[in-house]
């Protein structure tokens, strides 16, 4: 194992985060804080409780998930796309590192960043609403697994993208609608029966539901389904990345 290479990539990527602190951490935290102000305090105070939980508190797991998903995908996709765009990827490809080490470095850094953002958002939420985490260990585990799996997804996206437009296409056109329709701001039980069934095809439902369970002990779907869904998603991403490196898809001719 080339530990020095993993550390080098990890440190390099983390340094980029701290160099662009405003864009990397402060910006997502501010935008999420605005959600709390609007939905939690302004609108939330006029909303009924959902499953005996104040609306402001209810949306906390969804908002964390919303930001963490977007940040994981964006961090990882940018981390691998930018060297491709600049041409500096040659150095990684010519270095004595395995694919696993490359992934640990890039995905590890991207997941760390989004995990930190997730925790900061949780702390920010406590300033606006009453938040209690019933199963903290599960919450941290789910959050970490989500950060890793969606960073893997972002890594795939970054390799696939040929330009900046494609890089933004998937997060904007697919991920954002899935997150908003995945129960970030509502319980899927509030939907008409037919939409309750349809929405179960949205994988993000399981993530938000799982995280919500770790906060309140109740959720739209069982925590087991949530863990199963995210586990499957992680395995699919790892399989695709394995194929990418085996074939050299958009990396090596």
């Amino acid at each position, binding site marked *: 194992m080339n530990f020095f290479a993993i550390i080098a990539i990890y440190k390099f990527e983390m340094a980029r985060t701290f160099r662009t602190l405003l864009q990397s951490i402060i910006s997502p935290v501010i935008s999420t804080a605005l959600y709390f102000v609007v939905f939690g305090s302004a609108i939330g105070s006029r909303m009924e409780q959902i499953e005996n939980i104040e609306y402001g508190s209810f949306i906390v797991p969804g908002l964390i998930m919303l930001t963490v998903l977007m940040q994981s995908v964006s961090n990882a996709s940018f981390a691998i796309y930018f060297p491709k765009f600049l041409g500096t990827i*040659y*150095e990684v490809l010519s*270095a*004595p590192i395995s694919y696993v080490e490359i992934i640990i470095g890039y995905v590890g850094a991207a997941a760390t960043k989004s995990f930190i953002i997730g925790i900061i958002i949780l702390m920010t939420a406590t300033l606006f609403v009453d938040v209690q985490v019933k199963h903290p260990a599960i919450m941290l585990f789910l959050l970490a697994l989500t950060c890793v799996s969606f960073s893997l997804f972002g890594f795939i996206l970054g390799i696939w993208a040929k330009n900046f437009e494609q890089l933004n296409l998937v997060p904007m056109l697919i991920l954002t609608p899935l997150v908003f329709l995945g129960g970030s701001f509502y319980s899927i039980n509030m939907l008409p029966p037919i939409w309750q069934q349809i929405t179960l095809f949205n994988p993000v439902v399981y993530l938000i539901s799982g995280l919500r369970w770790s906060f309140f002990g109740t959720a739209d779907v069982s925590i087991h389904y949530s863990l199963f869904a995210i586990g499957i998603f992680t395995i699919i991403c790892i399989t695709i990345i394995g194929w990418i490196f085996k074939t050299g898809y958009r990396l090596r001719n």
Partner: protein
Amino acid sequence: MTSVISIKNLTKTYGNGFHALLNLSLEIEEGEILALLGPNGAGKTTLISSVCGLLSVPKNTITIAGFDVSEDYRKSRSLIGLVPQEITIEPFETVMNAVSFSRGLFGKPKNSAYIKQLLTDLSLYDKRNQKNMTLSGGMKRRVMIAKALSHEPKILFLDEPTAGVDVELRKDMWDVIARLRESGVTVILTTHYIEEAEEIADRIGIMNKGELLLVEGKNELIQRMGSKNLSIELQEPAKKIPASLSRFNLTLSNDGMQLNYIYDVRAQKTGIVDLLSELKKASFKLRDLQTSQSSLEEIFVNLVKE
């Protein structure tokens, strides 16, 4: 000398069917400077990319110090440093961070003393805390060399290291390469500049259309393939060249004081003796004779034309 890089029957075909390399074999000796010359599209960069791991190659086609680049990629790649043709460095990183990153990538622990010496040798140490984007083009190219040397490689690939740089910097680069050779590093460079190959290389490989037309010692190449010019200085100006000398294709200088005769050193008979004899018969009085070797550029152009 022992081969440090061995390439056997390497063929590289891209997805669109373009044959970038055709059955290319090459042995590169330890400690030498090999210059690969060739026009655009000759396959020079493809060859370098294949050796350095940027392109997939079949097993048993390329070995570095005995390690197969596909099977033993960790060992083979750790011996190589690569400076690509384009200036590609992280614009927002400092020189020191960029070079340290490269060292780590190649699995080497931190070594501040070595990096300091490296940056000093490349006149970069006082710019170590500057961001790459603030450096001039020449300095950026030096940073790329520093990155390639950061892990103390035994072999350095330089893909057109002096393309687009001014004369002064080009000479600086040549000095850097000469120092690397002195320290035992094998250097393989591609270039369009014949002058560059002539100046610094030990051996020269000429490529065209994916094929390696020849590899030979620079001096031997010039010696073997070059034509020579015999300049004959006359005591009195000649008005024209007599018909009896027409078979020698002589040229007369404007002032009529010098005759020039081009001959092939490879030919069994150079024709010099006959020429001198004919000149005597034609009553030319000679003052001096001088020969000069044709340049590598002429050799290269002739070879690629064939």
